[in-house]
């Protein structure tokens, strides 16, 4: 009887510890760390959350170093802060928790603005607008976005993206299947496990080049991204400095220069919507002024 009681007490203690570790207080994350800016200036270390394996935004080179458009931006920010940059590589889904728990000072990892996401973390103004397209197998009969709206269609996506919020209103009849990483979703497409995936055209083009003749992009964009730098809520000075930094980064042309260097052309920021995108976005996005809801 004593042993049984002891084991149940142990279980109860573990449960209590787990719940305590998750911060039972229902208060917002805001206010927990109000001096990120001061800390970075004092320690001369900027901790940046990023994801690897997301070319050309961020990749790991054979020598283990990170490289890419986002990585180059992080290094520029650190240089302007007179700080050493410390990269923390996480998964797509790990970006928001890393900010929520203050494991990183900022996230520069193709972090698109979405309404629900903006309730969890703060953003700077966007520094790029990647346009996303569906990618199908070359032999697939699907040629338009509308044709994907079928119960026979399974759309694969990586956790941590905004697809789970965008796709259901856009293609209500299609099934969704989530994978842990972008690479897994791509593998699922290549192996015929899913009908389509959706990524920015730059990544799609790279994938098509890597698998010649196997993949095809549906030439209708379904969303224009608003990629900004993510940061925890609660430090207004930090947000203000970063937002102004992004504004100046765009104004001086440095942004476009880096974009051209890593993406091979095109514009980092698109002022005009691709044809039909605004209408599709208005119908699909479950938030924001475009949706009218």
């Amino acid at each position: 009887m004593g042993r049984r009681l002891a084991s149940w007490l142990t279980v109860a203690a573990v449960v209590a510890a787990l719940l305590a570790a998750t911060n039972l207080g229902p208060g917002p994350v805001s206010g927990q760390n109000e001096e990120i800016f001061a800390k970075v200036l004092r320690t001369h270390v900027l901790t940046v959350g990023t994801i690897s394996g997301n070319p050309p935004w961020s990749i790991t080179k054979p020598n283990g170093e990170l490289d890419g458009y986002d990585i180059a931006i992080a290094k520029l920010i650190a240089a302007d802060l007179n700080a050493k940059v410390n990269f923390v590589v996480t998964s797509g889904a790990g970006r928001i928790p890393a900010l929520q728990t203050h494991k990183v000072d900022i996230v520069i990892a193709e972090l698109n603005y979405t309404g629900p996401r903006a309730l969890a973390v703060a953003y700077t103004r966007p520094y790029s607008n990647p346009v996303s397209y569906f990618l199908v197998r070359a032999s697939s009969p699907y040629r338009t976005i509308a044709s994907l709206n079928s119960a026979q269609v399974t759309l694969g996506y990586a956790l941590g993206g905004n697809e789970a919020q965008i796709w259901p209103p856009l293609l209500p009849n299609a099934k969704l299947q989530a994978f842990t990483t972008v690479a897994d979703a791509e593998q699922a497409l290549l192996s015929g496990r899913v009908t389509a995936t959706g990524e920015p055209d730059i990544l799609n083009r790279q994938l098509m080049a890597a698998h010649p003749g196997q993949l095809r992009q549906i030439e209708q964009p379904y969303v224009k991204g608003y990629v900004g730098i993510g940061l925890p809520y609660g430090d207004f000075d930090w947000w203000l400095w970063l937002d102004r930094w992004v504004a100046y980064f765009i104004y001086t042309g440095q942004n476009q220069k880096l974009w051209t260097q890593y993406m091979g052309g095109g514009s980092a920021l698109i002022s005009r919507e691709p044809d039909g995108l605004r209408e599709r976005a208005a119908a699909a996005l479950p938030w924001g002024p475009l949706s009218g809801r």
Partner: protein
Amino acid sequence: MVSLFDPALFWRYRHAIAAGAAATLALGACSVLASFAFGLAGWRLKTSRHRPFAWFGNAYVEALRNTPDLLYIYGLYFGLTGVGIRFSAFTCAVLALGIQGGAYVAEIIRGAFTAVSNEQRAAARALSLRPWQSLVHVELPQMLRVAFPALGNQVISTLLGTALASVIAVPELTYQSQIIGDSTYQYFSVFAMDAVIYLLLVQILTRVFHLIDHLWFGKWRGTV
């Protein structure tokens, strides 16, 4: 603003969480059965008098015990389609966990049989029992008594291993939690709930094993 812990989340997503827990149990049960089947086959091969079979059994046990489950999950799910074989994600997970768990089960069975002394077999022969009678009436009861706690641990390990199936989109508990976390940014809430559910499932299993052990083997504990 989104808080780190939202108790209301569990009620809102109770159906998804319950479905995930049910899928975890189903996947765990199927994987355990598969691991027992593979384990018995592995043990028979490993202890075979025919050298090629024994070599194959050894190779199976060593190769599978020294490589991670995830490799087999990915290999079966993505790799088999390359050769025209297409199992569902659930079947791939059952096979992967079963094949890997089987290697451990084979070793547990082998170890337990080793614990049955040769005098027991000699005594059975002296009583004119046939080999199968010796196995069923003398060796198996003693072997099971030794193997049971380790097999219980293996069952729990397999059940917890089902979380890996989330990488190929099997809608078990971890997958459902990831989906909920992804759409609500309440990762801590859902993973805390996850931990509690896994803990409860394992505690229930542990109690069942203790009960079976007490009822079936209790009076003989310590005799082998």
